[in-house]
């Protein structure tokens, strides 16, 4: 007996795609359950806690929505890049650079502006611009020199994170912070409108609006059509008169801009000051989100919300059951693995051959 892998000769149906996604979540949860068990805790308890707080209480729900916002911005950036098969792993770095840009604007460049209607668009532009620059860097390297974007974006993440660290530990540290590595608080004009006492702010609505923007861009513009072509077959794109190199740079720029905008929203909407390690890996989680959402901007909203809840829920079980927070990373890893495996099964089938 011999195992043979064969290509399926029709595309997968929506149903099988959906069931594959659900199944990969279930498989990861089961494996994760064993890990929790090995820590001496009851996985059923843990899962009940994990779900009940973020999705079952008003306070939890609010928190989930707040952590959805940065996830959604970074995810939408990735949707664009991944559509063109540009594997931008750098949403995390672009997010950091966006936060850096926003802080720079709010505290140093425009700090004399007191009207929020002028201040907010300015720092949003700056955040998006710096994020776009960070993405463009990888895009230009790919288009001009053929540098693999997976490596360049990944490495640029570290540059961005350490750059922010340098600033908050060094020149930008607030003298009034009792030596904590944080900047001064944003001026009032640089803070997004807050709608509830516990932090629901304009950022969340802008993130959802951004998903419409990305959908429109992909579905209803020439730019989206050219992304489709260039992503599917760059050679055919050249043949059809599309400048693929230019597309690579532009798509990386827009992708970086969305993540950068996410960084700005996090600063102006939630944290109000730059600090080290302010992201628990939003930009990396975004990779899994968009894969599960199959690059659909609207499904991305839903998945990003669920993952926002997951982050909140894990913080919860860390508190009550003393299960480490890194479990959320383990879960994401498992999910990625089972998803990739499931993806392979959608395109190939296994068959036993008699020798």
């Amino acid at each position, binding site marked *: 007996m011999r195992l043979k892998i064969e290509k399926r*000769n*029709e*595309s997968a149906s929506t149903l099988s795609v959906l069931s594959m996604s659900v199944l990969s979540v279930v498989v990861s949860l089961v494996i994760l359950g064993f890990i929790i068990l090995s820590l001496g805790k009851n996985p059923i308890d843990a899962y009940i806690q994990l779900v009940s707080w973020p999705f079952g209480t008003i306070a939890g729900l609010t928190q989930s929505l707040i952590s959805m916002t940065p996830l959604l911005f970074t995810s939408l950036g990735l949707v664009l890049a991944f559509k063109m098969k540009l594997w931008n792993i750098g949403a995390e770095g672009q997010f950091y650079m966006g936060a850096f840009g926003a802080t720079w604007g709010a505290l140093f460049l425009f700090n004399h502006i007191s009207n929020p209607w002028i201040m907010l668009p300015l720092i949003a532009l700056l955040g998006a611009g710096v994020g776009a620059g960070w993405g463009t860097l990888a895009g230009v390297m790919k288009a001009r020199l053929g540098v693999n974007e997976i490596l360049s974006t990944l490495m640029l993440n570290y540059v961005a994170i350490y750059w922010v660290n340098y600033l908050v530990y060094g020149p930008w540290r607030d003298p009034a912070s009792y030596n904590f590595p944080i900047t001064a608080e944003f001026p009032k004009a640089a803070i997004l409108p807050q709608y509830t006492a516990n932090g629901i702010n304009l950022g969340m609505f802008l993130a959802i609006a951004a998903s419409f923007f990305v959908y429109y861009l992909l*579905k*209803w*513009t*020439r*730019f*989206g*059509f050219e992304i*489709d*072509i260039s992503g*599917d*077959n760059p*050679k*055919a794109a*050249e*043949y*059809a*008169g599309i400048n693929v190199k230019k597309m690579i740079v532009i798509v990386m720029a827009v992708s970086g801009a969305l993540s950068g905008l996410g960084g700005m929203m996090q600063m102006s909407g939630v944290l109000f000051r730059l600090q080290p390690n302010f992201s628990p890996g939003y930009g990396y989680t975004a990779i899994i989100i968009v894969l599960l959402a199959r690059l659909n901007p609207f499904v991305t909203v839903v998945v990003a919300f669920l993952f926002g809840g997951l982050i909140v829920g894990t913080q919860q079980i860390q508190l009550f059951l003393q299960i480490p927070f890194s479990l959320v990373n383990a879960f994401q890893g498992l999910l990625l693995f089972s998803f990739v495996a499931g993806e392979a099964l959608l395109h190939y089938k296994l068959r036993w051959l008699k020798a």
Partner: protein
Amino acid sequence: MSDIVLKLSGIVKSFPGVLANDHVNFTLKKGEVHALLGENGAGKTTLMNITFGIYRQDEGEIYINGERAEITSPHRAMEYGIGMIQQHFSLVPSFSVAENIALGLKGSKISPKVDLVRKKVKDLAERFGLNVNPDSRIWQLSAGEQQRVEILKLLYMNAQIMILDEPTAILTPQEATNLFKTIKEMVKYGASVIFISHKLKEVLEVSDRITVMRHGKVIDTLKKDEVSERILAKKMVGRDVVLKILKKPSAPKKVELEVKDLWSRGDKGIYAVRGVSLEVKSGEILGIAGVAGNGQRELAESIYGLRKYTGEVKIEGETMRPLSVVSRMKSGVAYIPQDRKEVALCGGLPIYYNLFLKKPFRVPEFYLNPYLFNSSRLKRPSEQLVNEYLISTSSLNLEVKYLSGGNMQKVVLARELSLNPKLIIAVHPTRGLDVGAIEFVYKILLKARDNGTAILLVAGDLEEIFTLSDRVAVLYEGEIIGYSKPDESHLEEIGLMMAGVRKVKK
């Protein structure tokens, strides 16, 4: 009968949709150089990949020194003394020559004895005239030198049967001459060599016997002194009469395409097109005949703006910028490339996208808003095209990769012809298609011609050239070696030109 070291008997190998090897028989004698000659896609490389254990044959047996051999992997093949140099080398760029050779050795422990290897490599290099410094790193070497390293690897492993897959494609003429010397030297020491090529001249220069393959079948095996380039060219290209289509005499009008002294390099950096000048008038088909690999692809890509060139390309008297596909599209040039799946189609996108890959933004009468895109507006015209070109599909939304080869080509044709082109560049437009689809393509192209389109047709198949073209130009080593008329009485002349014999000027 001298002893036969390798015998392939009744080898059959099929890939989805293609019969790559159809009951192939092949023998290799000890100490001979046996050339395997054929067009691209004739099945030469597939056959050798089977011999080297990269593929498994579907049917047939392999005998080595008279004994049946089960070659399940390249590893096994090497145990049988078979070595192969593929078109893409398998060397580690950051390792030295000696390290690369040590790497492939059997029984090397944790630390291979590189010193020992170095010494032996030096000896071998001297003996066979393979001038390479064993301490150079691979990335420092030219393609020709890297090839020498590959040969040294085989010699070091003491391979008795060496397969060289198109070894001269990357070499300069001088390097090729040296390679032939080395091959002759190796044969003297008892090795047997299989030499894959589609170049007639070098095949005659280096080999003792020649096997010609076409469409996956062995056409003939001949001794070197029995043949000439002309005979080989004829056997290689063949004249399988597929179908006969009557065409009206052409009525050429104004010059549509003018090419002047065009030079262009192939993918490996060597000039593939060397000073081609030609003209195509509206309402005529100029056929470019020639054995594959004589610059056809590069010529077509240059004219369409996909490849860098020097010289001049004019369309309707207007000089085109190199590497600008958009300017060609605006001037009404359609292009049917030889690799439709790789170049002309997006396999993962639905049919109606593919039918309008070019059109929505670039053709005036279809001009939508230049920035917006409404895919549903493509559907109705797509439906028309699907009906008009008889594309058989279950739905417009089907991804193109699930179509058959013939239907894929119809999608390309439908798209290119619906642009109402003034010039069509068609490269091997019927390759891999069945008879019905071929007939369809012929009719479409002739109809376009009758409507006043200029067509530049590149084909390997002479029958196709004869059926379609009004004039024939023969391309040989990147030059147009002569023109002829497309009928049977000029077959002899065309065959000679394909083999590189210039027409005598009167």
